[in-house]
């Protein structure tokens, strides 16, 4: 067995172990101090609740996942070309950049009620919030990545007679990929926050809605169950982006050694 896969197995065992430890401490604590279930249910009760409500949780998970995915993908589709435009044309950059930063100065949660006025109670306003919150780190990191190239490399390319579009596609873009993925990973976590925010403000679907319902009914066990499902969704989402990163840029320094 190679040392790399050995390392990966070890890191998997460690993370599994740390979660198990948390559950054990949680369970013992609840038993020892006789904490009532409406404050803190035991992990076993949460697990049972997930099984019990799997149909409800499943439907709402699908709904929220769709929102996250739509917002995240829309953010990529808009942010990456916009960043390219800003880097390629300084004039356009000066025009676009300040209002773009201004949109980030407004707290996104404050925009959610407006989006409901604009887009109604459907999927759209939630996707819009997820999009808006995920969009910014992708733009910023893509800009930094595209600009962050050794000036000597550009000189070398010019001495090879390379036209600007070739320099951009063959040098700047691949060189920026590690930074872009950094932005995507941050955005993947923020898209979850955005989707939830949208659902909190006005929704009858999604895990955010289930959370509010459970809270209103003091059903703390269901609340925890929803939180666990939500965390799992967010983690799967994050690691999916990381997996794509590993496949696309195996050459980058961040991919060579895996921290355990």
């Amino acid at each position: 067995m190679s040392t790399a896969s050995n390392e990966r197995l070890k890191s998997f065992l460690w993370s599994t172990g740390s979660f198990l430890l948390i559950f054990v401490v949680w369970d013992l604590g609840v038993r020892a101090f006789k904490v009532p279930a409406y404050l803190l249910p035991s992990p076993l009760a949460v697990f049972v609740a997930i099984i019990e409500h799997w149909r409800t949780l499943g439907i709402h998970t699908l709904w929220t996942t769709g929102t996250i995915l739509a917002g995240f993908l829309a953010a990529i589709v808009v942010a990456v070309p916009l960043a390219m435009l800003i880097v390629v044309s300084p004039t356009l950059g000066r025009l676009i950049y300040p209002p773009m930063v201004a949109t980030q100065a407004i707290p996104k949660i404050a925009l959610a009620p407006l989006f409901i006025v604009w887009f109604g109670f459907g999927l759209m306003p939630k996707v819009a919030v997820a999009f808006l919150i995920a969009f910014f780190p992708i733009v910023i990191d893509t800009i930094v990545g595209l600009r962050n190239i050794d000036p000597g490399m550009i000189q070398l390319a010019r001495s090879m007679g390379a036209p600007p579009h070739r320099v951009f596609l063959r040098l700047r873009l691949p060189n920026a990929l590690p930074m872009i993925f950094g932005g995507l990973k941050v955005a993947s976590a923020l898209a979850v926050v955005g989707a939830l925010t949208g659902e909190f403000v006005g929704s009858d679907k999604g895990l955010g809605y289930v959370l509010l319902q459970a809270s209103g009914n003091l059903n703390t066990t269901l609340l925890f169950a929803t939180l666990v499902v939500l965390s799992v969704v967010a983690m799967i989402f994050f690691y999916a982006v990381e997996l794509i990163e590993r496949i696309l840029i195996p050459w980058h320094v961040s991919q060579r050694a895996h921290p355990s």
Partner: protein
Amino acid sequence: MNAFIRADKVCKTFATRDGSPTLAVDHVDLHIDGAEFVSLLGPSGCGKSTLLSLVAGLIQPSSGGVEVGGAQVKAPYTNVGIVFQSDLLLDWRTVLGNVLVQFEMRGEDPRPHEARARQLIASVGLAGFESKYPWELSGGMRQRVSICRALIHEPPLLLMDEPFGALDALTREQMQVDLQRIWQSSRKTVIFVTHSISEAVFLSDRVVVMTPRPGKIREVMRIDLPRPRAIDVRDTPEFAAYVRHINKLFQEMGVIH
């Protein structure tokens, strides 16, 4: 006879951060023949790299003119191979891919050149490393790849800007011997920027000694040592005399105290 490279009264002024202009290259006249190995030697910041960029057409002179192969250099001169101190290899490409990037950046199909690229890589002692990535190589090996990239399209002119400056002393000596061999077999014109006196004397047909900023030519010395020069040529009295003379020049200019 017409020189391959002619710099006539070349001046280059840069705007500094506070807006005041700085003269980096001051009335440089330099003629270099085809297949000649010329070093530009001077202290840091003396404008020798600027002069190299002027020859490459990467920057334009403030006054005066540069001709390469009989034509005025008005834009980046592309019939050239350039090696910088930093190897500038692309992390996402293999050794072979990094050499062939020369053709891709020119919009040419690299595939017909692959066999020759492999030969070239082998000739600098990197046979078997063709599919390795830059981060799997040592600094000396990386710089060898970058030299291959500068040679693969067989340009008549090779510009080298302190190419061995980042290498350890032993690797550096080996690279100098190898570069001499490559130059002797390919007969290219080489302009080699360095601040190492012994490196300049060892490699060059002529050494151009430059003054501190603003960079002027202080003296052009012809190095009459037989080729090929072995590493122990440094122990000969002739070699020592050249080094001593250049040292004396730098002392007069206040570069060495």
